[in-house]
């Protein structure tokens, strides 16, 4: 669809002498980039297109308007600003809790020797394997009888079920690769194990902690199933994923272009995060499984 848009010049030329193999590689690179970005290009075009012209055949920007964005932030319809704030609140609390509990477990699992380590690892990973619906049904009823449906705590607590395991196993992998000899050295110099951890390991581990935090936050930001049910139709606490799924532009309009505008608002910050932290994110993603 958007073949014109990602010009081949974006892809730098191969530096080696000309080979047909390089041409093939460049071609595949272009295909991969198109594959990943073409739908987003279309989102961009529609976000700036007048709703009346949703089905216009123009591939390029046409019927350009800013009005779609006003629907997103107009409090009468969607109050999307509020849902973004909700996503940030939920994501921040979930990430903080998961990191707080995860860092100790990760350290113990990577560093200390104790009976039942296999048990703990299996239990924590088992917890992350649970399908969301398995805890959703009882939580729905429990929260319903506590009057918690449509509250922040109802949206935050269940997310710990996948955020904490993710934090623990990513951190465990990172910690396992840390230069523990330094800790030993610190202890020889008279530090306790706790001090050695705080003063030597923690600063070294800061990048790993940060990476883990990004991954946990992204996962929380993307959560939909639990939030859509447990927010129970309350727009004032619902995160942006729920808001976008229920997006309206008033009655009697199929709000395609307005939804794309809102989608763009969610997408742009994430693209920036990805651009800035791409190396970290990749290292975090591959730490858990691949390197071992």
């Amino acid at each position, binding site marked *: 669809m958007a073949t014109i848009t990602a010009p081949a010049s974006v*892809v730098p030329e*191969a530096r080696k002498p000309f080979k047909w193999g390089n041409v093939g590689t460049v071609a595949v*690179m272009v295909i*991969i980039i198109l594959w*990943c*970005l073409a*739908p*987003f290009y*279309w989102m961009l075009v529609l976000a700036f297109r007048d709703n009346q012209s949703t*089905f216009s055949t123009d591939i390029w920007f046409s019927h350009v308007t800013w009005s779609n964005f006003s629907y997103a932030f107009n409090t009468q319809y969607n109050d999307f600003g509020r849902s973004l704030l909700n996503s940030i609140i939920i994501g921040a609390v979930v990430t903080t809790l998961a990191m707080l*509990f995860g860092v*100790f477990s990760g350290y*113990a*699992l990577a560093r*200390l*020797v104790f009976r*039942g*380590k*296999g048990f*703990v*690892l*299996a*239990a*924590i990973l088992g*917890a992350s394997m649970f*399908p*969301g*619906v*398995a*805890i*959703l*049904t*009882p*939580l*729905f009823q429990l929260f319903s009888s506590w009057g918690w449906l449509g509250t922040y705590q109802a949206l935050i*607590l269940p997310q710990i*079920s996948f955020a*904490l*395991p993710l934090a623990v196993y990513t951190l465990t*992998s990172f910690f396992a690769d840390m230069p523990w000899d330094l800790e*030993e050295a610190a202890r020889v110099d008279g530090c306790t*194990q706790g001090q050695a951890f705080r003063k030597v390991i923690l600063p070294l581990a800061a990048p790993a902690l940060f990476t883990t935090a990004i991954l946990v936050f992204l996962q929380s930001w*993307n959560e*939909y199933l639990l939030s859509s*049910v447990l927010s129970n139709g309350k727009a004032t606490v619902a995160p*942006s994923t729920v808001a976008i*799924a229920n997006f309206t532009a008033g009655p009697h309009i199929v709000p*395609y272009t307005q*939804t794309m505008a809102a989608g763009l608002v*969610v*997408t742009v910050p*994430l693209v920036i995060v990805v*651009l800035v932290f*791409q190396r970290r994110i*990749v290292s975090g993603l591959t730490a*858990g*499984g*691949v*390197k*071992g």
Partner: protein
Amino acid sequence: MTLAGQVEEKVIENEGRNGRKRRRPRRTSINPGESRRAWTLIAPAILLLILIVGYPVIKAIYQSFLTDPGLDKSTGLFNQGNAWNGITNYTHWLGQRCAVAGGGTQSCPSGTLGSQFWGSAGVTLGITVVACTIETVIGMGFALMMNRAFRGRALVRVAILIPWAIPTAVTSKLWQVIFDPQGILNKILGTHFAWTSEQWPARSAIVIADVWKTTPFIALLILAGLQSIPEETYEAARIDGANAWRRFTSVTLPLVKPALAVAVIFRVLDTLRMYDLPAILTGGANGTTTSSILVVKQLTSGVNSASALSTITFVLIFAIALALVRLFNANIVGAQTGGKVK
């Protein structure tokens, strides 16, 4: 489980390393003080998980043996339900037995939620198999290409991370626009599919959207595996006269298999639980009701019955996960003949 294994192996390896350095054979002697410290550090996380995962799941299992509120015909009002119901909720879903007025059961007629159980399980499994296969094959291709030394790799990596990072809720909406009968896809292809309102197009739409979003992610995981293969291994194979295909099947594939296995198991589990993509894209219509969607639908018309359904779903996914772990584990062991088989 595989992950647990992997992480643990790595941890043990690490300990072994440290242990050797410190001349302390840690695996045989466990320091009780260290053990206690470890448990103190881990206890909060475990307790939290018991509270948030363990307790609800057990409660769901307990409730799945209770009745849902029923209508008292004389007053026209609902009773409280929650009476002991034995395994009726399970036979309802697994055996597709629906209640008949005046007692007894019959086979659930089409149009009841009960009759959709095996259908939705089949659809979920079908989408999983097709999507994961395509994702793995294409992802492998992408990874092999990216593994060749190339200046634009950073650019590709960013491009690849974007579909992964954007919430599925957003991409579902995006694909809904693209798949509209009057939308851009039909225009480009020159087709007139009502993508989201016919059975097979709707299922394909979900597979396409899922493949689009996650193939890059799989490619990334495989790439990391590829990069850990030393170049000398290929050189050796080349010297032995192996052609490209042979090198792929006898060097690349076996060595990348552990990474691949983790990626695939991850993806399979994720796809089996799939909810947001079909819920938003098709609303579960046209034979795209996944098991998770069915649970959510049942939630409002009987929580105890929904508990039975979610328990069944969970057990099925758990069983598939275990089966996959066994399958891949066997292969991994087989590939590393004489290696570090325990």
